């Protein structure tokens, strides 16, 4: 089962609409990127799917066990080692204590950190912290994985490597991934489908399917990136004008 969003709206008390009547269906095993300019409500949308925010109206259907979530900053608990951060997710998910260590080792291996399990978050680089966060979200063992701009703060080389690893992980696990980003090239590189959100309030402005052929053709993907960037710039300008007028 994927994720269904039906006429979902969100407004905070005393503010205008953040999300307006958004309807979308994300299929089981699909990798969808939600693309939008800063402040368009894409993180709020993800928080609603995760159950961290309640929609003002409309409904959201997610699998009965909920969705795993990967935060923009790794959000690791600084007093726990990398392994213990992952183990906590297993513990809270009800995994038996005697199976946890083996699963932690397996997950650390999966994110290529098998020798860093004992390190505390402050002893890890930004990329390594995000890998631990990814392993922790995989430890939740849920079919749906929500990712809120997880690589935004990383340097280009690290981001590039993590893109590749995430893509491999998705193919291995068949998870449904909803990936929020403002980076057009990241969205094209990773996803099968891109939902472009309008700014203020957030609505689905465009939906684009990304075929393997398009992704692997530099000319085609560059053309799409230019097109989507133009849309986002227009939205951003509109948002700034609205903000200035408001």
């Amino acid at each position: 089962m994927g994720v269904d969003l039906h006429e979902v709206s969100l407004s905070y008390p005393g503010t205008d609409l953040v999300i307006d009547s958004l309807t979308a269906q994300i299929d089981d095993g699909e990798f969808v990127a939600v693309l939008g300019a800063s402040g368009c409500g894409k993180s709020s949308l993800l928080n609603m799917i995760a159950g961290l925010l309640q929609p003002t109206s409309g409904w959201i259907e997610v699998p009965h066990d909920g969705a795993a979530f990967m935060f923009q900053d790794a959000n690791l608990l600084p007093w726990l080692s990398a392994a213990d951060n992952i183990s906590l997710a297993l513990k809270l998910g009800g995994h038996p204590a005697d199976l946890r260590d083996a699963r932690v080792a397996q997950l650390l291996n999966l994110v290529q950190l098998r020798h860093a399990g004992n390190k505390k978050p402050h002893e890890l680089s930004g990329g390594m912290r995000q890998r631990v966060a990814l392993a922790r979200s995989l430890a939740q063992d849920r079919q749906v994985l929500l990712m809120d701009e997880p690589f935004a703060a990383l340097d280009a080389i690290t981001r590039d490597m993590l893109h590749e690893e995430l893509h491999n992980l998705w193919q291995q696990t068949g998870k449904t991934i909803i990936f929020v980003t403002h980076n057009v090239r990241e969205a094209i590189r990773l996803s099968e489908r891109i939902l472009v959100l309008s700014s203020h309030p957030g609505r689905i402005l465009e939906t684009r399917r990304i075929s393997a052929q398009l992704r692997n053709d530099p000319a085609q993907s560059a053309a799409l990136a230019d097109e989507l960037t133009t849309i986002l710039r227009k939205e951003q300008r509109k948002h700034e004008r609205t903000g200035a007028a408001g």
Partner: protein
Amino acid sequence: MSALAQQASPPTAKADKLRLPKTSLDSVLAPILTVIVLLSLWQIVSWVAPIRADLFPGPGAIMAKLPEILASGSLLGAVGTSLFRALSGFILAVLIATPLALLLAHRPLLRKGLGPLISAMQVLPSIAWVPAAIILFGLSNATIYMVLLLGAVPSIINGLLSGIDLIPPQYRALSQVLGADKRQHIWHVELPAALPGYVAGLRQGWAFAWRSLMAAELIAVGGSLSLGVGSLLQRGRDLADLPLVILVILVILFVGVLIELFCFAPVERKLLRDRGINRTGGKNV
């Protein structure tokens, strides 16, 4: 392993380790030298100043008192009594304050009602409770413990509360997405995250407990009460024995500093080091 996974830790940690020995040496040597200089000045002034020796004893005269009071056993006995009271009272204060702080943190209305009262109690000098405690419990240990608890509990409550207040909101979101219930959130996330604030509160609570104890022992003397360090201070006053009074003050200070140096400071250092926080509050990242 990929090249990225092998990235080294940031260089700051190594640099800090290299600087540490000099910093530690400075932080030990500087106060010792200061004390030596002050004691020397005090001794010189006591020699040359035209003041009666019993009204302005120098460090030498005070230290000369030490063998006598040690031989009588009264100093060690009093220190033992006071330390036992302070430690048992402090443990009791922690057992009372911790659940109370957690309750206040999760019951906003209760906190709105009780929070200002607890902060006000922290401002009130604990010596003010001594007469009331004597009226209620007479000259007994209950009087001492009442004053000590009223001194220590508010600090510990406020320490834990401020630790909880400073927890980044994303930890609550993390607990939620990991499926933690309230009890699991408190145990696995909230309490460990609030630990630096809690330890600061415990530290302050200990200081208040020790001060309150001295105030109580100073006033509540006799009855079924054993002789504590505060009572020894009162005895020095009754005998107009200034060297004894100053010696006891130094002992009170010494015990306080020892507890600080060997209990709270190492715990706090380890806590900050484990979280990659340096002593100025920045992160070693």
